């Protein structure tokens, strides 16, 4: 069966420090991969998605970047964190290869607090 791993679960970082959040998926090949952010009491904001290695679509211009160095690995990064980067970051995958109506499967998220 497929599983998704996301770490760390919580992170406290000072303003101006770098960030690297990692997400890996097991049990499937060529998945679509996603990064969402959820502010307190708000909905999920799509940040990046990827349909293949090295293919990244950015949805919101901001202080973050994403990379997909391997088929089942998705990394969210920042060179210098801002206070506004605080939030709950969620990685997700869905069946790729052009399958349209498959659901998203989420990790358990990373709670990031920028101080």
């Amino acid at each position, binding site marked *: 069966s497929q599983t998704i791993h996301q770490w760390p679960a919580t992170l406290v970082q000072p303003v101006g420090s770098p960030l690297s959040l990692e997400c890996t998926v097991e049990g499937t090949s060529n998945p*679509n991969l996603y990064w969402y952010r959820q502010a307190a009491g708000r*909905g999920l904001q799509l940040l990046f*998605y990827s349909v293949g290695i090295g293919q990244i679509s950015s949805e919101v211009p901001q202080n973050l970047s994403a990379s997909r160095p391997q088929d089942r690995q998705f990394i969210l990064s920042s060179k210098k964190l801002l206070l506004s980067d605080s939030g709950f970051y969620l990685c*997700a995958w869905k069946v790729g290869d052009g399958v349209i*109506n498959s659901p998203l499967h989420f990790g358990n998220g990373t709670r990031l607090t920028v101080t």
Partner: protein
Amino acid sequence: SQKIEQNSEALNIQEGKTATLTCNYTNYSPAYLQWYRQDPGRGPVFLLLIRENEKEKRKERLKVTFDTTLKQSLFHITASQPADSATYLCALSFSGGYNKLIFGAGTRLAVHP
């Protein structure tokens, strides 16, 4: 721009009653709509998917309707239980953007014994 609206106020109901949650959208030509459940501090979990050409979908105590004329989906939980208490999110994928799933802010449901 595309917009998805869900009731921001929490829905409080008595155990055994039917909970009905609303999802409205604008400026979309959706391909399909999905509903997710999210518990505090956890990632959302998929519940149901309904296509644009489907009017209704059922799964056990859950029912989803999709009215593309009204641009609205209703999510029903019958015989609700305290364990159904959670935040419920609707999400849309639209024609020409199948790889993107856009979420509403969610509605918190509280089922009281």
